[in-house]
């Protein structure tokens, strides 16, 4: 196991009580997986409805009140960050060198920056987009990117199981 000696940080992460707990329990991994999918549904559901409305689906919805659901999206993200950290601790070597995992993390970062762009670039206009009113072109571009990136996050996440690290 020369790889272990070469990665003291990963070895340390693996030996944390969290890592040991997830590895040694029959139920922990499936239960955390369930939570990870529940978190995904909350996060993508809220973001998806906002993006779809901006793009013109269900145009009768005013956009501003949709943001009331944002705490739910953050809750979903929080659940998935925590359960994701626990997956990582369970076996850091599975994830750290996995190209799909790295792409997934990069895409989540991109999704965050994209959401920030929405917040800084078009959020001030959101009040104007009441029932039936079309969102701006820029908002539509950001929302379309958002949907594509989140679909990419799910895809990369599933592909962690089908890719392994190049040696």
């Amino acid at each position: 196991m020369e790889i272990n000696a070469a990665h003291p940080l990963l070895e340390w992460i693996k030996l944390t009580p969290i890592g040991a707990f997830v590895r040694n329990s029959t139920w922990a991994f499936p239960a955390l997986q369930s939570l990870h999918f529940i978190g995904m549904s909350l996060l993508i559901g809220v973001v998806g409805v906002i993006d779809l409305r901006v793009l013109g689906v269900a145009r009768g919805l005013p956009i501003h009140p949709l943001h009331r659901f944002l705490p739910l999206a953050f809750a979903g993200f929080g659940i998935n960050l925590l359960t994701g950290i626990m997956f990582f601790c369970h076996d850091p070597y599975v994830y750290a060198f996995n190209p799909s995992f790295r792409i997934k993390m990069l895409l989540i970062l991109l999704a965050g920056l994209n959401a920030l762009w929405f917040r800084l670039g078009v959020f001030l206009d959101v009040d104007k987009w009441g029932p039936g009113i079309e969102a701006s072109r820029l908002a539509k571009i950001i929302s379309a990117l958002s949907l594509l990136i989140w679909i990419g996050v799910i895809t990369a996440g599933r592909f962690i199981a089908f890719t392994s690290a190049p040696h």
Partner: protein
Amino acid sequence: MVDQLLHALQHSAFADWVQATAYPAVITAHSIGLAILVGLLVVIDLRVLGFATALPLAALRKLMTVVWFGFWTNAISGVMLFSIDAKKDFYSPLFRIKLSAIALGLILGTVISSSVLQGNSPVAGTSSRAKVLAVCSLTCWLCAIVTGRLLAYFTYGDIGLD
């Protein structure tokens, strides 16, 4: 008779193709469909329960087209996944609970869509009957996700349900 059908399906060229070639794409589609189907229904159910009451209920109904798109994505990918593990799935209580929860969830979604998501008043409350339907709907989808996930890790014998 049923066993023969399950056996035939599981050893069909179709099942072989799913297992050897399509599996990563199919399981990915199943996850994306789940996020669309459950994600949008959660938002609708929470609006019915009193979140963001400024949203007109009738306008939310337009989202049901997308919800059904998510459902059909998962029905098709689900049949493909079933073909690989037909016998194990068919006899698994987890699988049966999952399908029952989905069936009930779809009925509740249809009832909510046709009887609650109407009326154009910008701020509308919902009846306590509607709220009960929404809570039941959320429970069904929670149940479908959990049993679906557990199905990937346990066969029916492993968790003492058989």
